């Protein structure tokens, strides 16, 4: 068999390959040759073959058949063989292969070899890929080597110890005595590696950390002063050629020491005090003209921020960062922005001083810098500077890359919500965001915005006018169009009547409004969700507008045969509304009340079943509780006269559909079924949790322990109110009370309103009743759900107020309910 080619030849041949396929062919041929040579147990050329194998491994080809060969090489006596063997072991082997355990004995022998280079090789390999068993076996040897006087070996042993500790943390104590003398060395290599070892020990175990902070010995070998001394020597000493890197001696060691100081000083006053001087010295003496100096300053700043330094030092650190920001080099600016982001929580005011520089960084070309600057700007927005910052951020939104737009838009929304100086400004800002980055805005922004608009009652006219103008020209940005159609549907009458205090009122006719909504419906650019919004808006306008009802009817009936199932369903139902339930239409499409912010979908998720005609569909919806303005609550308070009763705000039963005809439930149910979160506002044409019929079957709330007995809370004048209880499994302080009101007289009771108040330690939520009419002769009941939150598990008490019309006269009554069964509140 001819002598296998040298590595260089191989590399040269591979480089001549022009295509991937050619290269693969050559390599395979060579692999085959190597494999046969291995089989022949050829000692002389083994190392050459393994070297070639390593090269091929680096290029990405499988080389596992060489592992055993590496072992054989390690076992041989020649140094070159050993060298390649260990290298191969480091590259090819790791814990996952079973073969590596065979190496343990070889390494052990080599650790005691006479030549330091062999020992060094063994230490390196162990430190690189030793598994936990190997480490356990060989830790003693490593520790012995840690104490030798040979600095070449000491530094390698220290690094190996680091690896051992990483793999087997229990062995840390074994190395503790050896570390005492490590820092007394002059050799920087040893110093560096021992600092690494100490860092690793401190990071891994808080006990070690405490030990190092406090060790006091006669020879004053306390750790922190030692480190400080070494650092001082480094800075003060003159030019030393073997450690110099562009004018600074051994910056790597300096950085390492700073990092160890950081770990030692964190949360510890004594150590931090000892370090203050040296940190100030480093910060002021280091040259900043070269990158090296800046690297050291960066580490210093990080350390100052982390330990309990005095405020003067902190200000120094932030000023250094400010100087970094003005530097031309991108790397430095990036690093400064990153650290400022970390410190902005703690030293807010100091960072504010550099606000203008940060805002300038937004205009930088570099992507990483822009991202950092954007995050930092959002962190810096506060009540005082919100207007200025917003202007800059909006400008940034205009010009930034698409990947930033979503984050920027959400950030702007959050900041605007927290710090908006006025409602009008808030709405303006949001509109600006929608028009510039409309398509990148996140889905949940639309419902939030709608809720915000409903909340600012006095701005309705202004808002709807601006939105109308915004979509007049261009209706391609979906979120904008959705919000606009919703608003136009709600407040179209304000738009047409031309009253607006904040701005010049524009003259819009009803036809023009309908024009724009229709074009949204027809346009190709509209998503089907947007079309849903538009159709619903048109429908709502049928109650707000006076002269164009016929046109609306026509539009709605056209879409009754649309291909889009969603639109079709809506149109058909609206048609039904026109034809059969016209008397209900005004009530149904009345103005929406002010919405309370839906924060989480806690345990109060309600499962709502659809009406009788479509039985099998279930849908979960978070119940936004409609808040009634405080006037009703005040009435109740007056009546109940002050003690410790807090009023409860019932949901306004304004748009009250009567007991359901099947189709009406369909209407409400199907509106509820539109799955995407964006349409959550759309079903709120009628009162939010309207499908109370579904509430009677609430799988989330189980009657615990075979039911809590129900009580009769009130029984007078033919009106009887029963309470039934359920406790939630998920949240034991919530009790759900379902009231049933029945009427045993011969005449029905109409306009029935139930209100309730509970003591201060409770919270109460009233959901809408099923209707406001109680038919006579106990032929039907009104059902209403009350949820009581009772975190302190106190006895439940309630005062109720009932108002209704009976026999032509208005009746009202107050009562107190005290007979709650203990299981309902314990």
């Amino acid at each position, binding site marked *: 068999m001819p002598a296998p080619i040298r*590595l*260089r030849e191989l*590399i040269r041949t591979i*480089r001549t390959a022009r295509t991937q396929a050619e290269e693969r062919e050559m390599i395979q041929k060579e692999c085959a040759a190597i494999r046969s040579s291995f089989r022949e147990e050829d000692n002389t050329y083994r190392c050459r073959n393994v*070297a070639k194998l*390593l*090269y091929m*491994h*680096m*290029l*990405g080809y*499988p080389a596992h058949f060489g592992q055993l060969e590496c072992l054989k090489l390690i076992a041989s006596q020649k140094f070159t063989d050993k*060298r*390649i063997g260990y*290298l191969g072991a480091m*590259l090819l082997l*790791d814990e*996952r292969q079973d073969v590596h355990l065979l190496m343990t004995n070889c390494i052990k022998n080599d650790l005691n070899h006479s030549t330091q280079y062999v020992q060094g090789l063994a230490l390196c390999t162990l430190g690189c890929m030793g598994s936990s068993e190997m480490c356990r076996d060989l830790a003693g040897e490593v520790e012995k080597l840690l104490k030798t006087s040979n600095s070449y070996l000491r530094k390698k042993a220290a690094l190996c110890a680091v690896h051992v500790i990483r793999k087997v943390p229990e062995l840390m104590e074994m190395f503790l005595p050896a570390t005492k003398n490590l820092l007394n060395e002059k050799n920087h290599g040893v110093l560096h590696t021992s600092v690494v070892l100490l860092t690793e020990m401190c990071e891994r175990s808080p006990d070690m950390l405490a030990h190092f902070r406090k060790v006091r010995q006669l020879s004053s070998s306390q750790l922190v002063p030692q480190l400080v001394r070494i650092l001082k020597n480094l800075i003060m000493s003159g030019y030393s050629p073997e450690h110099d*890197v562009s004018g600074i001696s051994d*910056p*790597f060691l300096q*950085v390492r020491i700073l*990092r160890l100081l950081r770990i030692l000083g964190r949360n510890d006053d004594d150590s931090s005090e000892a370090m203050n001087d040296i940190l100030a010295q480093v910060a002021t003496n280091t040259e900043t003209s070269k*990158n*090296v100096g*800046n*690297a050291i300053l*960066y*580490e210093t700043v*990080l350390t100052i921020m982390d330990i309990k330094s005095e405020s003067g030092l902190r200000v120094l650190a932030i000023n250094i960062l400010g100087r970094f920001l003005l530097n031309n080099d*991108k*790397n*430095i*600016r*990036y*690093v400064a922005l990153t650290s400022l982001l970390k410190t902005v929580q703690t030293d807010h005011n100091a960072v504010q001083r550099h606000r203008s520089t940060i805002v300038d960084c937004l205009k930088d*070309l*570099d*992507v*990483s*810098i822009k991202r950092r600057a954007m995050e930092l700007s959002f962190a810096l927005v506060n009540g005082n500077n919100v207007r200025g910052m917003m202007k800059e951020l909006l400008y940034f939104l205009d010009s930034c890359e698409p990947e930033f737009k979503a984050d920027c838009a959400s950030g702007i929304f959050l900041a605007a919500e927290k710090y908006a100086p006025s409602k009008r400004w808030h709405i303006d800002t949001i509109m600006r965001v929608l028009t510039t980055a409309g398509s990148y805005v996140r889905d949940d922004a639309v419902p939030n915005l709608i809720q915000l608009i409903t909340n600012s009652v006095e701005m309705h006219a202004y808002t709807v006018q601006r939105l109308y103008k915004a979509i007049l020209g261009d209706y391609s940005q979906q979120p904008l169009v959705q919000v606009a159609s919703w608003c136009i549907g709600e407040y179209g009458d304000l738009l047409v009547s031309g009253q607006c205090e904040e701005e010049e009122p524009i003259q819009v006719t009803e036809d023009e409004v309908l024009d724009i909504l229709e074009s949204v419906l027809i346009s190709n650019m509209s998503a089907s969700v947007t079309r849903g919004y538009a159709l619903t808006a048109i429908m709502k306008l049928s109650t707000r507008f006076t002269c164009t009802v016929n046109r609306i009817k026509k539009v709605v009936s056209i879409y009754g045969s649309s291909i889009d199932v969603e639109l079709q369903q809506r149109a058909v139902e609206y048609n039904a509304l026109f034809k059969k339930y016209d008397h209900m239409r005004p009530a149904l499409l009345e103005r929406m009340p002010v919405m309370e912010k839906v924060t989480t979908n806690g345990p109060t998720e309600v499962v709502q079943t659809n009406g009788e005609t479509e039985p099998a569909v279930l849908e979960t919806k978070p119940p936004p509780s409609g808040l009634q303005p405080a006037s009703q609550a005040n009435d109740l308070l007056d009546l109940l006269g002050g003690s410790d009763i807090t009023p409860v705000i019932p949901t306004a039963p304004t748009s009250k559909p009567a007991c359901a005809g099947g189709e009406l439930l369909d209407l409400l149910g199907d509106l509820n079924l539109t799955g995407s979160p964006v349409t959550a506002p759309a079903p709120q044409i009628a009162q939010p949790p309207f499908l109370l019929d579904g509430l009677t079957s609430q799988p989330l709330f189980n009657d615990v322990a075979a039911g809590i007995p129900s009580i009769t809370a009130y029984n007078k004048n033919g009106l009887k109110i029963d309470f039934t209880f359920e406790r939630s499994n998920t949240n034991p302080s919530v009790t759900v009370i379902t009231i049933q009101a029945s009427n045993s007289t011969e005449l029905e009771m109409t306009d029935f309103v139930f209100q309730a108040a509970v003591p201060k330690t409770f919270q109460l939520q009233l959901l809408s009743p099923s209707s406001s009419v109680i038919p006579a002769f106990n032929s039907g009941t009104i059902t209403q759900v009350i949820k009581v939150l009772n975190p302190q598990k106190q006895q439940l008490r309630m005062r109720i107020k009932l108002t209704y019309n009976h026999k032509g006269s208005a009746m009202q009554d107050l009562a107190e309910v005290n007979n709650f069964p203990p299981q309902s509140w314990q």
Partner: protein
Amino acid sequence: MIKFFLMVNRQGQTRLSRYYEHVEINKRTMLEAEVIKNCLSRSNDQCSFIEYKDFKLVYRQYAALFVVVGIDQTENEMAVYELIHNFVEVLDKYFSRVSELDVSFSISEIHL
């Protein structure tokens, strides 16, 4: 902690690779290709630190060769940047004016 150390040329050929954490061999080539793509798309006056998946890349270009080091969050990026330069200077001294060819042909020496 340094995750890996690569020297890759502009065509995507790896001249030197050292991984300090276990990465599957087929994933390595993919990783290297992606990394070099990221580095090539940066212009000269852009920052040398890129965020890639869950770690950072620090890269430096020397003629047609890119030295890329992957680090995690606890490392000082600028110190690593200096380390790269130091390494290249050492190679320079060892090979007296090192070039890419030297790197390709003397892998075993460079590793150790």
